[in-house]
């Protein structure tokens, strides 16, 4: 009898210690290993705890973990998530299920994304170029609220996030967007004002939209055709077709380019002339004081 009881106690202990989906698969269990591992599988515990998802259990997103070390540590992905994971697997190599899991809670945003030029490229065309959630928002482990200065999609940071792809020449060629889109935006009044902290200055998403972004040739794009007038009017009331033609992000027009060169030549010439004039004046002044003792001077 006593032996039997001991065996039962031992069995109970073992059950508690064996990692199980129901009882022990909270973040602390995973971070026991992943908190100190190196490379892409590392999760920074401190930063994770501070993120908007910091209270989540890992398996809420990592629903189909593989390998013996994860045995019993897994959630249960529904059919939609499994399908989505399959279609983004060329983009998301490490854990497509976890990438697809965003849609479970953010279903409304997922619907917008699915219809966007980015979403179609990833989900339908199965391209590895297009962005998934984490491409813009960063790792789900460390997502900060949009208002936070650390957020990659904060009003003042989102331009850099877009630039990660839209500055790339090979993508510009492949998808026929202006290769100078970033440069031309950054040097514009809009870009400069945003840089020096103007809340009202538009970032990329202010005009182009974010999750629902469309190709400019798509008539539903906010910068296509007559929609552009409406979009510009948000800040410039009374905008007309002629007015909205100002912003194209295209390379500098030759007339503007040569106007700049002429003005630079003018500026440099005047600069050179006045510098020489002032230096000669100083020279003559010193010379006169030292050698000519000009009595007429005060």
């Amino acid at each position: 009898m006593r032996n039997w009881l001991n065996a039962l106690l031992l069995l109970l202990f073992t059950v508690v210690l064996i990692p199980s989906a129901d009882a022990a698969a909270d973040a602390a269990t995973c971070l026991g290993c992943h908190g100190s591992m190196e490379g892409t599988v590392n999760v920074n515990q401190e930063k994770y705890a501070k993120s908007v998802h910091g209270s989540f259990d890992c398996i809420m997103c990592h629903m189909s973990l593989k390998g013996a070390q994860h045995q019993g540590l897994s959630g249960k992905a529904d059919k939609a998530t499994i399908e989505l994971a399959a279609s983004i697997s060329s983009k998301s190599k490490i854990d497509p299920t976890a990438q697809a899991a965003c849609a479970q809670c953010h279903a409304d945003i997922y619907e917008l994304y699915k219809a966007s030029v980015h979403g179609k490229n990833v989900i339908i065309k199965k391209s590895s170029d297009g962005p998934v959630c984490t491409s813009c928002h960063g790792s789900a482990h460390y997502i900060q609220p949009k208002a936070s200065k650390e957020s990659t999609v904060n009003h003042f940071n989102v331009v850099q996030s877009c630039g990660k792809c839209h500055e790339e020449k090979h993508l510009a060629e492949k998808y026929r967007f202006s290769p100078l889109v970033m440069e031309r935006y950054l040097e514009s009044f809009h870009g400069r004002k945003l840089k020096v902290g103007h809340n009202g200055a538009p970032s990329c998403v202010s005009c182009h939209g974010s999750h629902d972004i469309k190709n400019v040739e798509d008539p539903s794009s906010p910068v296509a055709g007559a929609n552009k007038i409406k979009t510009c009017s948000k800040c410039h009331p009374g905008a007309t077709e002629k007015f909205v033609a100002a912003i194209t992000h295209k390379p500098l027009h030759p007339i503007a380019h040569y106007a700049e060169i002429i003005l630079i030549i003018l500026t440099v010439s005047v600069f050179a002339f006045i510098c020489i004039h002032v230096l000669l004046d100083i020279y003559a002044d010193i010379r006169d004081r030292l050698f000519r003792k000009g009595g007429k001077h005060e």
Partner: protein
Amino acid sequence: MNNKNIPTEIERFDLSARIQHVIMFTTFLLLSFTGWGLKYAYQDPASAWIRFWGGAKMAGIIHRAAGITMLLDFIYHQFYLLNLARKKDLRLTLVPMPKDVVDAFHNFMYFFGFRKEKPYFGKFNYMQKFDYWAVYWGMFIIGASGFFLAFPVMVSSIFPAWSTQWIWDVLFIMHSDEALLAIVFILIFHFYNEHLRSEVFPMNWMWLTGKMSIEQLKHHHPMEYDNLFGEKSEKKK
């Protein structure tokens, strides 16, 4: 020479002209300070500098207000000139003349030591004329482009459709590059001539008093001196 008729100093700028100058340089400095932050937005101190001016929105308001004040000051100056002309007080002493080119050449000869004497300058020498007309250039290039950029929706209706592809870039380049030229010009040419020159350091007080001593006039503007007090002028009167 009749010394009794020669005063010890002579007024070169009346009160109105002095006030116009004060408004001009105050707005110029405000425009330079706030505009600099936007022109060099991607250089490190720009954001902190804009914060010093009350943030991007406030700096923008200061820039626009100063710009409009400067344009009004410039327009007022045209009426001031018209009024002088009406009172027959307007002497065309600032109009560039062929003599200015000769004077400039002579001045360079003097710099290099080929001439012993400074040129026979009139009421305003060629450098001062340059200074004066530079403001007109600035007003037409920087002032006009600045006005267009400040009211883009309104202004876009007057530009022809074929210019919309480049006109805003041209206006922006004009405003930005010529503002740099104006700042450099003032900082080097005007500051040297009116502040740093050993005779006037730390500044030429004429901007406050409007007056120049007769010795200064005789030395720097001999033609004007001779016109006013020389033998010839006495004959005329």
